[in-house]
């Protein structure tokens, strides 16, 4: 008999007795205990990050012949050594912040992550990464399904979305994750003064607590109203956070600073979602020195580095795992606009006190020969080597302490890089 954790909680001891003989289920519970303070921070780079400019195969001659205008010169990359197949790699020169984390042994680089038959669509790609299900990308999200496994009632701040829209990954059956793009504006106003404002807040809380009968859409909006009213006061606590480092002045750094504040204040959030866009670099991508892409890399590297140092200074790095990815990598050959079009496999990065730093997986050979097994689409795009769901499985099993097969609907542990 199969029981999900949620059913177990609902049905209590009976379910436990029924499932007593199932070792996987027991280990699931065991995993859940003792990992309560851990959190996962997803940093999603939207638009399709050009992985070959992030982690540069600077000794592959085809990298230079296929990207004459935008290749990063070999002499400028930040060297990180070689993968197991002997491909020598370097980070983009503006990623000095990530380079120092790599040198601390706390950054894992997972090459060629992806899945089969990518449509190269931003939107389907985002949904597939969000659900972990290429065959049904409009279902609820992989992190939402994780939140569904937590014992009810869950804290309304168990998840924290630092972007405006709720990403597919956080869509859940049972938990409405609040979106807090800017904690400073996350407040409730009233046309009236204190006592009357309180009357209004009480009325709004009561109204949204009514059962909406046969109108599930109304129940849904009521849930978001309550989610907002239930989280206001604690989010306000985070506003007063004074970090231990100076963060750069940009939106990504502001979001990470807020996440750090939430972690330091012990809000209890298990999953944070942070998003940073601008990676759809069809034109004017630039190379090492300037251009749009270099600025993106500078922002990511410096912001993540500030976040890392802030948590490390406060001895909280061991509680945090940051996972970073994008919806696809880009075509290998540059186009005539000094940019790159939509491609297939990309990279994932993991950062945190529990991360085993290093390079995982192997770089593609960029030889455009259609028979090159590391490429697809007649040598046009990088073929995936590591199923991205195996990384999700690793994070679920070994970090969040939940049985990954329950959340992902199948066993994707095979071939998972040992990043934690």
């Amino acid at each position: 008999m199969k029981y999900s954790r949620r059913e177990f909680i609902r049905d209590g001891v009976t379910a436990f007795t029924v499932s007593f003989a199932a070792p996987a289920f027991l280990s699931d519970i065991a995993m859940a205990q003792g990992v309560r303070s851990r959190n996962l921070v997803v940093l999603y780079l939207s638009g399709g990050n050009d992985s070959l400019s992030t982690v540069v195969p600077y000794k592959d001659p085809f990298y230079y012949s296929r990207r004459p205008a935008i290749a990063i010169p070999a002499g400028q990359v930040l060297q990180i050594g070689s993968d197991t197949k002997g491909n020598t790699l370097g980070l983009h020169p503006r990623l000095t912040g990530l380079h120092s984390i790599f040198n601390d042994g706390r950054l894992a680089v997972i090459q060629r992550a992806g899945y089969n038959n990518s449509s190269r669509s931003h939107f389907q790609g985002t949904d597939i990464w969000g659900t972990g299900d290429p065959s049904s990308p409009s279902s609820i999200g992989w992190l939402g399904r994780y939140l569904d496994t937590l014992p009810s009632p869950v804290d309304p701040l168990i998840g924290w979305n630092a972007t405006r829209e709720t990403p597919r990954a956080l869509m859940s059956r049972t938990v409405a994750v609040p979106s807090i793009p800017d904690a400073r504006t996350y407040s409730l106003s009233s046309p009236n003064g204190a006592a009357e404002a309180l009357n209004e807040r009480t009325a709004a809380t009561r109204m949204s607590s009514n059962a909406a009968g046969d109108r599930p859409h109304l129940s849904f909006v009521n849930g978001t109203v309550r989610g907002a009213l239930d989280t206001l006061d604690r989010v306000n606590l985070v506003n007063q956070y004074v970090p231990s480092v100076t963060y750069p002045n940009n939106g990504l750094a502001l979001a990470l600073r807020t996440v750090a504040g939430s972690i330091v204040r012990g809000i209890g959030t298990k999953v944070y979602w942070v998003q940073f866009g601008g990676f759809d670099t069809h034109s004017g991508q630039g190379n090492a020195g300037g251009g749009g892409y270099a600025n993106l890399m500078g922002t990511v590297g410096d912001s993540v580095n500030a976040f890392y140092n802030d948590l490390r200074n406060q001895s909280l790095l061991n509680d945090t795992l940051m996972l970073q990815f994008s919806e696809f990598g880009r075509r290998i050959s540059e186009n005539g606009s000094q940019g790159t079009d939509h491609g297939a496999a990309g990279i994932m990065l993991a950062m945190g006190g529990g991360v085993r730093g290093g390079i995982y997986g192997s770089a593609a050979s960029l030889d455009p020969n259609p028979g090159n097994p590391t490429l697809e689409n007649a040598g046009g795009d990088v073929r995936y080597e590591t199923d991205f769901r195996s990384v999700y499985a690793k994070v679920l099993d070994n970090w969040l302490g939940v049985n990954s097969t329950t959340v992902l609907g199948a066993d994707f542990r095979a071939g998972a890089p040992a990043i934690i």
Partner: protein
Amino acid sequence: MARGNWHVEHLLRRAGFGPNAEDLARFEESPVALAVDYLVDYERRPDDVDSKIGLPAYVSVTTRGQFSPNTNIDDARQRWLFRMVHTQRPLQEKMALFWHNHFATAYSKIAGVYGAVQATKMMALKSGELPGPQGQIELFLQFALGSFRNLLLEVAKDPATVVWLDGRTNVKARPQENFGREIMELFTFGLGNYGEQDVYAAARVFTGWNLRAALVAGRNDDPNSYYEFVYNAAQHDVAAKTFTFPVYSDGNKTIPARAAADGMQDGVDFITALANHPETARRLARKLWNFFITELTAPDPGFVEAVAGVYLENKTEMRPVIRYILRSQWFIDPARWFTRYSWPVEFVVRSIREVGWNGFSVDNARTPLTNMGQTLFEPPDVAGWELGPGWFSSGAMLSRMNFAATLAANQRFNLARDVGAVARRAPEDALAFFLDRLSPAYLDQGPYNDLLTYLRANATWPATDALLNTKSAGLARLVVGSSEYQFV
């Protein structure tokens, strides 16, 4: 304002921005079909809304120096909001909003390339007010119910599109795929109908579709400078392009090789094929189901086939399509009233129309709209906004509640005066007045009682003027900020 003709009110919420008192009086006894024709045949109504900007009887705009909606994007946003509040052609504005989401183009990328003045002109220039082609939103107004094929062609040549999807950098030596991909994935038939070789071929079709600068003193920041579409034959890939689907009505999948001078015909042929493809018809039908019928259930296959049929029979003309939808049983069904999640601009415009605007500036809606997740002229990406439940994150819902508070505070005295004239005796009367003036979905007994409890809290009735000043604003804020009010 007396409500009662619920069919017409539903129509005016969905196909417009909610009824006002004048609409309700006009259609009090009318069959819904008459109101449909009134909306659909909008050319019979005056196109004079812009002439009312700045007049005292209307919602205000906030000027910083001169009001410059053709060259300042915040002023362009104010002009559009003003139009939505006061237009006499609500369906035309509603369809412009629909097309803005369908052909989602964001100002900021264009401003990053050509600066604020040119980017605003590309998004919002009203024809004739300054030199240069009309802005994209004016195109959407012009083609609101016109031929989709013609609209698609105009969008492909639209300067804002050419910048937004990088067509201006598409050259024959190494074609650029952004526009070629998105016109198939998002503007027409969608995923599953093309492959990578079609993306490569489509990119080549649009090589040479570019912009020409007409600058005064070489300056982008001169309001008289402009950019316009140009077909650059020297950058067009003249070789034949073969697709996996038919481009011509005889089933031929290959656009023939042409002389460079004639090469623009490649794109015209391709756009004509995409617009007339049956899967484009079905995809538009599904989007229109979600926009006009309901977001609670998947599109009825009967609806999709019927609407796609009307579209194809009428050579992609949208007017008969929309008329068919608004007159259909799918639309009229009372079970589908208040079953679409309102877009932030719909919410804001409807609340201004219902709560009141005397002394209120639409500028006060700009920042709240951003926090609600809908900045006009700034969709998050080329797929448009995340509709339906996607609008309703907790942060966005807070912004809706807070906008309700801002508007209610601003209209406090108008509201108190109106309610005081007829309904100061008992809280039930005051609540009845507000539920007639505002238009939430049906309130169950629970929230109804909660509102009465609020009116009674720290209050004695019959109400003094001071109490009405307080409770009117509080009640308007609660109703407009309620879950029931978030649907159209």
